[in-house]
């Protein structure tokens, strides 16, 4: 039983390491700023999820029996979309990606609208 658990956690380690590597490789390989956002937010998050699952499974083989690593995983899964959202807002605000089509119902996208009335970014104020 313990041997099976050990092998399963070893495989989870390999899967997690593979996904983490793919996430960072995608960050380096892809050429468009918005495309780069996809690789780390998905592959990176699942990679860490698998590593943490491996850690939990391994703790059952050594008799520590800890499940609290799952909190780190839950926290990462909740915060990863928010970080990605903020990074894409930065791209939209600074115009470093393709201009999106205008929204069909309202006037503007929120980020563009904010940029007009919010305080200027320091580097914009200087130029």
């Amino acid at each position, binding site marked *: 039983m313990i041997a099976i658990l050990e092998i399963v956690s070893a495989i989870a380690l390999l899967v997690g390491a*593979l*996904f983490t590597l*793919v996430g960072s*490789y*995608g960050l380096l*390989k*892809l*050429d*468009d700023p*918005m*495309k780069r*956002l*996809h*690789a780390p*937010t*998905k*592959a990176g*998050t*699942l990679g860490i999820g698998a590593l943490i699952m491996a850690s939990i499974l391994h703790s059952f083989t050594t008799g520590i029996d*800890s*499940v*609290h690593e*799952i*909190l780190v995983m839950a926290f990462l*899964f*909740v915060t*990863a*979309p*928010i970080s*990605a*959202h903020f990074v*894409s*807002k930065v*791209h*939209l605000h600074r115009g470093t990606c*393709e201009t*999106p*089509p205008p*929204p*069909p*119902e*309202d*006037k*503007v*996208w*929120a*980020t563009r*609208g904010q940029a007009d009335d919010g305080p200027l970014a320091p580097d914009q104020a200087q130029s």
Partner: protein
Amino acid sequence: MAESQAQDRPKLMRRVFPHPLLTVLLIVVWCVITNSVAPGTIVLGVILGILIPFFTYPYWPHVPRGFRPFKMVSYLFLVIWDILVANVSVAWIVLTKRNSDMRSTWVVIPLDLRTPEAITLLAGTITLTPGTVSADLSDEGHCLLVHALDADDPNAVRDEIKTRYEARLKEIFEYES
């Protein structure tokens, strides 16, 4: 139906448990963080679960009405399954496709949802699932801007998100209307 139940509930209960689900969540998180289910831990968790919602109640904008926890659980399992599938497909795209072969586009999704919590959950779900990242919301919250990594047809992406996730979220949060 849930609306009238909520009004019938005694006022004292509402004051002691302003957010019943938050109380349950806090007890579970406390038990996980201390890594035990001993009676002492649970008692301390219950105390925290009552005190924290009680004292932070004035700072919460409003309590969501008509929330269905059990549908939420089945939705969570659907999303977890989709995350697994999505990660494998995105990893495959990143590893095998050349940059020039990827057809990444913007997709605009007109929203039927009006509750802020539901829109937040939809945006989070979109970011964690197949090749899409939610980028922005229109200024009055009627459309969501989504970036797709590799989509042949933007309309198909839009329709899939609307039928697969938005319809279910509408059932969870806004089924009365």
